C-alpha cells in the first residue's frame, strides 16, 4: 500500500472478528512503532503487548473506550527516565508528540497489514497500570486495540482544508491555487 493511500484510507476500527493477529503482522506493527521520530532521539516509549485471553479481558474491563475484544492491545507508555530538559527549554511537552508519532506509525502499520486499529484514551489509568505491573518510571499514555476488522467504517466528516490551512501568514490563500 502506498503511504499516502494508507494515510487517507485509515479509519478507527472498533469492532473485530475473533481471528487472531499473526506474529508476523504484530512484529511489523511493533517495529513501525519503535521506528517513530522523536525529539533528540530520546525514544521515550515502552510498548506492552497484551494478547492472552484473560489479560485482554481484564484490560478491556478497565477500558470503557474499548468497544469490542481485539486480537491484541498495545499499551504505549512514557518512559519518564527519558524525559530530559534541554538547553532550548522544556522538552517534556515534546515527548508526548513523540508518543503520538509512535501511535500513528502503529495505526498506519496495522492498516497496511490489512488490520483495523483504534487509539483508546478512555481507560482507568491506575487500574490498567496495576494490571500490567508498570513500574513507577512508566506512565501509561494510550492503548491501541488491533484486530481483524468486521467492516471498514465510513470516514468521519473532516474540517474544510480552507479552514485549517493557510499560506505565508494566517488567513493567507494559496497563490498557486488562487492566483
Amino acid at each position, binding site marked *: 500500500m502506498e503511504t499516502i493511500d494508507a494515510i487517507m484510507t485509515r*479509519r*478507527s476500527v*472498533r*469492532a473485530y472478528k475473533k481471528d487472531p493477529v499473526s506474529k508476523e503482522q504484530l512484529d511489523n506493527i511493533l517495529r513501525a512503532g519503535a521506528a517513530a521520530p522523536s525529539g533528540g532521539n530520546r525514544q521515550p516509549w515502552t510498548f506492552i503487548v497484551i494478547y492472552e485471553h484473560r489479560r485482554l*479481558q*481484564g484490560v*478491556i*474491563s*478497565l*477500558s*470503557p*473506550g474499548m*468497544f*469490542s475484544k481485539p486480537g491484541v492491545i498495545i499499551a504505549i507508555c512514557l518512559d519518564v527516565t527519558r524525559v530530559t530538559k534541554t538547553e532550548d527549554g522544556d522538552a517534556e511537552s515534546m515527548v508526548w508528540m513523540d508518543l503520538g508519532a509512535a501511535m500513528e506509525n502503529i495505526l498506519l502499520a496495522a492498516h497496511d497489514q490489512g488490520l483495523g486499529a483504534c487509539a483508546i484514551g*478512555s*481507560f*482507568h489509568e491506575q*487500574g490498567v497500570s496495576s494490571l500490567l505491573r508498570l513500574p513507577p518510571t512508566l506512565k501509561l499514555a494510550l492503548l491501541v486495540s488491533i484486530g481483524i476488522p*468486521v*467492516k471498514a*467504517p*465510513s*470516514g*468521519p466528516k473532516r474540517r474544510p482544508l480552507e479552514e485549517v490551512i493557510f499560506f505565508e501568514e494566517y488567513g493567507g490563500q494559496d497563490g498557486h491555487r488562487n492566483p
Partner: protein
Amino acid sequence: MDTETLREDLFFLIGFILTSMHGLYHEPAEYGINRLLDAGGRLLSIMEAHGLSDYFLRKLGQEIEEEKEGSMDSDRQKDTISRLAIEYTEELQRRLSMKNH
C-alpha cells in the same frame, strides 16, 4: 450453564461500568451514551454466550453491535436508540400480556 464463567463475565462487566462512571467525570457528556450502549451490548453478549438470550434479545444485540461498529454519527445514533427503545417497549408489552393470560 457454566456458572463460574458467567460470574467472571459479569465481574468483568462490573469493572467496565465502574471505570466508565469514573471516566465520565472527565469525559464529554455524550460519551455517557456510548458507554451505556456498550454496557447494553456487553450484557446481551454475555446472555447470548450463556444461553440466556432469545430472538428479540439477539436481534437487539446485533443492532447495538452494528451501531458500535459505525463511525460516531450522533444524529444516526440518536435515531437508532430511539427506535430500539420503542421496539423494547413493544416487546415488554407483549411479554407482560403473555404472562397475564
